[in-house]
């Protein structure tokens, strides 16, 4: 074998082996690579995560947002379309927070199946368009609500 091809095969072999090792590592670490849990996952492992600081992600259910008597406090329902959870939050909501949109809440699950959030982050989707286009699509009933994963 020419030295050139020998060196080429070394490079390819090393990259393949390291890539394989890395893939296995990342697969093993899958759970900790996840930035947030869905309500379904959380409710299925309720005992494990009760009263622990976690991140929960989901969509804000339409027509579920309510202001609470306490100042700056709100409650709403977060859903992953399979399971839903009532969420309570006191503080300023991000600009992109709205019903039907994705959010990530940092907080903990309490005994009465409520999630008490200490911070809310708005998740935005990968669709970008001018407002007029969005309105026109809505008018023509071609609108598909953006779905976060």
């Amino acid at each position, binding site marked *: 074998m020419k030295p050139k091809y020998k060196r080429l095969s070394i490079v390819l072999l090393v990259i393949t082996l390291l890539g394989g090792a890395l893939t296995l590592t990342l697969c093993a670490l899958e759970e900790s690579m996840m*930035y947030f849990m869905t309500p379904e996952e959380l409710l299925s492992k309720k005992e494990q995560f009760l009263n622990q600081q976690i991140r929960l992600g989901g969509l804000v259910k339409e027509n579920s947002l309510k202001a609470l008597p306490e100042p700056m406090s709100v409650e709403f329902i977060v859903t992953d379309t399979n399971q839903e959870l009532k969420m309570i939050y006191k503080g300023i909501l991000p600009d992109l927070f709205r019903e039907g949109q994705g959010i990530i809440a940092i907080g903990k699950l309490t005994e009465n199946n409520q999630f008490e959030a200490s911070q809310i982050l708005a998740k935005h989707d990968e669709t970008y368009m001018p407002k007029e286009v969005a309105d026109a699509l809505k008018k023509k009933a071609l609108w598909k609500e953006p779905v976060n994963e």
Partner: protein
Amino acid sequence: MTRFANPKKFYNLSQKLIPILGITTLLFFAIGLYFALFHSPADYQQGESVRMMYIHVPAAWFSTLIFVFMATMSGVAFVWRHPLADLLAQEAALIGAIYTSIALITGSLWGKLAWGAYWVWDARLTSVLILLFLYIAYLALKQSMQDKPIASKMLRLLALIGLLNIPIIKGSVQWWTTLHQPPSIIRSLGISIHMSMLIPLLLMAAAFGLFFLTILLMRTQTRLLNIKTIALLKKQDQLDDPSLAA
């Protein structure tokens, strides 16, 4: 292609290309920024803050593409022993590091506006931060080795190993749950950016790419001159003092 692996030919070709590339870069930046800042609509959700995209996304694309370029050149240098490939990889690193910083800083500001946080430790943000650390490590290694013959070997190794981080950056938003949204352009469902925003984005991407090429050629030229000067000085020393020649 291999024709231009000859340093002298490469130098002469760069000499011709640099002014053309430079002017084209300026042109693309001018048109791209005009479109991005004045002649594109606000987003239906994010409003005006979407304009951050026209800097953030091109910088982020090229921060990964430049690393792929460096790794490819390092592989070429290792397999085919073209001395120019090493130089191209090494001279690209600083530009890559700057692009990565731009992507991280603009992303952080945009994140505050859109998400409500400057920084979170999700898989996308963390893997891009690792990319910046790889660039810094590469530059620090290059600086500390001062052209010793072993330097280029270690740099090739670092670039090739660092290459493994690139698929993680790309896949992070698809494999795992992240705060960062999934891709808008290279995805199975087709492009999800409206044409009026896609055009300024692509113009800016072209500008960032051309800027990289221009600076890369200029830096490599300077490096070649440097090497030549050192060689000439050595020769001069030998002429002055024949005993050094041995």
